[in-house]
């Protein structure tokens, strides 16, 4: 399974898609996601018939410092702010051609995250998309049975999000350390 799937034909066929060189991932506009996924599955050149993994990635707004060469030919450090975003990542393989993985990403915002469900294309996405819905709060349009899978139905919040705050239920420990020490110093002992 080490044969790399070439992405150029996909970019040629669907001009809206991008190749993220750093991540090695195909970034797909949400509106076209189902069409592209169906094409990747049915096209004989790809036959990506198996989706092995679905997960979410949460990016908070952050500052990135980059070293660039300015007009005068000197090195310069420039800071820029990268806006927050939410990615849904799919790892696609072809069982037929023994190729893969192709990393397939749908990108959305953090505030009202919504992407197209690929469960109609690959049945194996169903439970994993439910997991992403549960832990990241991403809404999957067209998912046949979207509800929480790991946490209970009454649970509030999405634990895998970067800004999730867990309930404060620290109780006394003899050797607190790191984050636990912080909780320890807050002093209150409740269960």
């Amino acid at each position, binding site marked *: 399974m080490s044969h790399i799937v070439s992405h150029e034909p996909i970019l040629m066929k669907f001009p809206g898609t991008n190749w993220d060189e750093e991540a090695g991932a195909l970034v797909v506009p949400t509106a076209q996601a189902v069409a592209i996924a169906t094409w990747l599955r049915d096209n004989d050149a790809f036959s990506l018939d198996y989706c092995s993994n679905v997960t979410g990635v949460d990016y908070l707004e952050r500052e990135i410092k980059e070293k660039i060469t300015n007009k005068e030919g000197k090195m310069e450090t420039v800071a820029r702010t990268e806006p927050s975003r939410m990615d849904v990542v799919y790892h696609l393989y072809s069982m037929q051609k023994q190729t893969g993985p192709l990393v397939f990403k749908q990108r959305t915002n953090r505030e009202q995250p919504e992407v197209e469900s690929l469960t109609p294309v690959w049945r194996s996405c169903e439970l994993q998309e439910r997991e992403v819905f549960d832990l990241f709060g991403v809404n999957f349009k067209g998912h046949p049975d979207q509800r929480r899978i790991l*946490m*209970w139905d009454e*649970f509030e919040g999405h634990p895998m999000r970067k800004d999730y705050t867990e*309930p404060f239920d620290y109780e*006394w420990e003899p050797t607190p350390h790191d984050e636990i020490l912080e909780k320890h110093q807050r*002093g209150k*002992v409740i269960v």
Partner: protein
Amino acid sequence: MTTEKLKAGMNLDDTTRSELERAGVIVSQVDSLYNWARGGSVWPLTFGLACCAIEMIASATSRFDISRFGSEVFRPSPRQADLMIVSGTVTKKMAPQVVRIYNQMPEPKWVIAMGACAISGGPFKQGYNVLKGIDRYIPVDVYLPGCPPRPEAVLQSLNYLQEKIRTQDIKSDPAFTKGRRQYPVPEFTGKDLEPPYNPEVWQPPANPNIKPLEEVTT
């Protein structure tokens, strides 16, 4: 052999007892006879939650053979089991079902909390989704530490439990005086389980670094 000694059957020492046994007379108490029989056939519940369950299963295989201690009959129904081995991480989502299964078991019943997670939450203690020990909701008889404990340790915990069973006093034990013990099943809320623990069986540990309120005010 005096008659006083026979009357006070409890005070019969082991040498006299074995002497009598050689003569074909068995002198015993109802308690010890009952407890001997029950301790020799503890039926565990077929029930696993995480990786500890694999070690529990291994203790039933021919290499370790839990049947040497009379506990090979793993029952698939709580109605037929005496022993609940809570083997593995109890997530908050699973905790109500564990309590419910415990409630369904008939008396007398015992619980072994197997592994760091079942005892205290283990490495997941400070997380958001793991119960900090099953003893918050049901009474635990033997705590079996390890991550996971080896099958030998499972067998040893069973030995400890049998020892405990053998010293049980039938007249005062809650298993025989209170009827079937049932504990409230916790309910899900937005953040946590409600109630977070059952005060009847468990109280939060006191922080030795915090002075009691009376001392602070005076």
